[in-house]
């Protein structure tokens, strides 16, 4: 909302550079109210509702991270389940050493970010589709590696220690708050990252990688940063998963269906927008809940919808909303208005409004 006022000498040359086409104070206030209302929920609803919401928080966090990777940095990773699993197992490792799982959560997330550095060094040698499968192989390798440790439960996993003496009600409430906190921090981090200088580089990569490179944007560095941030985010989601399940299990925590879920939620909601993953998660949860008695059907339908959206509505559901109503809940770009005519164009964003 920074407004650069030009001296009003000639109307035609007066420009205002704003972050948004509309005032976003209301969005911020709305988001704050929503978070406060959500934080208050454990006092008001049954634990069935909160555990459902914990699932939604996990999917939303994952989808936001995948959006950052694929929507902005052009990195289609099919191996983010590797970080989900690592996050879950880091919580287990710290819990086995006596740390409370809730205290272990942030440490596990940071450990995942550290682990992302050598993994990036490995997979960054490959591009596009080969990068995608390389991350997948890496996730499979991580799972096989972890299964070798019998102290971590081998191929069957272990229950998570450190919950003894906690009342079930308190446990579900804490789990819920942990999930909510992770999601809020993840969304805020994505928002702030995209508003920063790196965000400008990322938006440039999203729109045209070659042009971004030739303009001197440090594409490699921005990608590394995104990969690490996504590692932290997916690791945190994995940690929440372990806490909400009260156990870790290699084949479930390292399952590629995590990546399918985060990718499809993002694509359906709208790739390359912050709002997209939120809408996508809602659609995902609704589909999953309505079709949960039909086994794999929700994944089939989700896959089909994702294909149709990718082909025919490339900006997803949010793109449809945005093109009609012209709104942006989380403005990360710049919007240039001339003083005389109310039309304008975005700066540094190419064809798509930022």
């Amino acid at each position, binding site marked *: 909302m920074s407004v650069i006022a030009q001296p009003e000498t000639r109307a035609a040359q007066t420009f205002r550079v704003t972050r948004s086409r509309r005032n976003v104070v209301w969005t911020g206030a709305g988001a704050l109210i929503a978070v406060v209302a959500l934080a208050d929920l454990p006092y008001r609803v049954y634990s069935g509702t909160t555990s459902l919401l914990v699932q939604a928080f996990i999917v939303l966090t994952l989808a936001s991270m995948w959006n950052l990777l694929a929507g902005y940095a052009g990195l289609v990773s099919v191996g983010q389940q590797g970080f989900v699993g690592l996050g879950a197992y880091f919580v287990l490792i710290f819990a086995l050493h006596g740390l409370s799982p809730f205290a272990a959560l942030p440490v596990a997330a940071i450990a995942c970010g550290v682990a992302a550095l050598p993994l990036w060094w490995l997979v960054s040698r490959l591009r596009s589709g080969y990068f995608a499968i390389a991350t*997948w192989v890496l996730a499979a390798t991580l799972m096989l590696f972890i299964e070798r440790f019998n102290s971590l439960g081998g191929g069957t996993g272990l229950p998570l220690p450190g919950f003894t003496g906690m009342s079930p009600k308190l446990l579900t409430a804490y789990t819920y708050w942990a999930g909510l906190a992770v999601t809020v921090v993840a969304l805020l981090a994505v928002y702030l990252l995209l508003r920063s200088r790196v965000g400008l580089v990322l938006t440039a990569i999203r729109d045209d990688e070659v042009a971004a490179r030739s303009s001197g944007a440090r594409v490699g560095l921005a990608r590394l940063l995104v990969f690490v941030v996504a590692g932290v985010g997916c690791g945190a989601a994995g940690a929440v998963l372990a806490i909400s399940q009260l156990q870790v299990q290699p084949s479930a925590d390292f399952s590629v269906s995590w990546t399918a879920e985060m990718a499809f939620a993002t694509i359906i909601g709208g790739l390359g927008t912050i709002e997209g993953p939120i809408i996508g998660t809602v659609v995902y949860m609704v589909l999953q809940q309505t079709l949960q008695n039909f086994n794999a*059907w929700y994944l089939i339908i989700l896959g089909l919808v994702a294909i149709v959206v990718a082909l025919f509505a490339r900006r997803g559901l949010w793109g449809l909303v945005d093109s009609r109503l012209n709104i942006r809940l989380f403005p990360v770009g710049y919007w240039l208005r001339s003083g005389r005519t109310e039309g304008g164009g975005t700066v540094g964003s190419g064809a798509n409004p930022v």
Partner: protein
Amino acid sequence: MAWVNAIIQGVLTGGLYALFACGLSLMFGVMKVVNLAHGDLAVVAGYVGVGIITVTHIPVLWSFLIVVPVMAVVGYALQRTLIQSALNRGVLTTLIVTLGLSMVIENALLEFFTANSRGIGASMTLVTGSFSLGSQVELPYLLLLIFAVAVAVLLGLQWFLSGSSYGRLIRAVADDQEAAQLSGANYAHVFGIAAALALGTVALGGMAFGMYSTLDPTAGTDTILLFAFVAVVIGGLGSLWGTLLGGIVLGVAQQIGAQINISDELLAGYLVFLLVLVLRPQGLVSRRAQT
């Protein structure tokens, strides 16, 4: 001798992995498509084979004559519709669409055919029998046949791509789509033919895998796609014979891993892949680094 046996088994399994890999490599080489549904399509081919054999009771080897053309047609149709329209919208869309296709196929197989695993021709002597060399070295007929088929497929592909006029057309379109189009080539049709060829090899791979091991809905991604990809990267991106070399390296690494500790079979293969990625990211026989 156990080690010699392991290495021989590994080399022979490399033939199977080359069958998985050459279609992936071909589609990338010609259309720049990385088909994430590659492995699932192989599983579909295997299930089609199982279905045909169960319904018509024809001999297993005869079923190949139906499955391979069917999958080739599927490949052509898929390329002309879904993959081509994804390609027109960019690399990212191609990846998303093939990932979506992969998940749809895998879960549809789960839904309609359950998670039970199925084998093909499990009672045949071809599948169970083997030559014995000395006391500990076994040469299974099936693996020998698969290896021979893989070599024949690669020879055939090489002859087709470099020797035939249609192959020249494919290479022309792969080199420069627009120039080929201006010279009168219908690139969409040529892409379709390339996809048909690729899915023909995928069908062979899926059927062979069904005979060598068992098929289940998740085998497509857990095993076939990842092994195919690892073989392609080890061998070198864009190289046809590299897929055989990569397959052999992967197979040998797995068998040696299994010799050390039976549960380390997969891990050993992936570790060799990571090693190649670190030391020689362009692969063992490729000319170009990166893609």
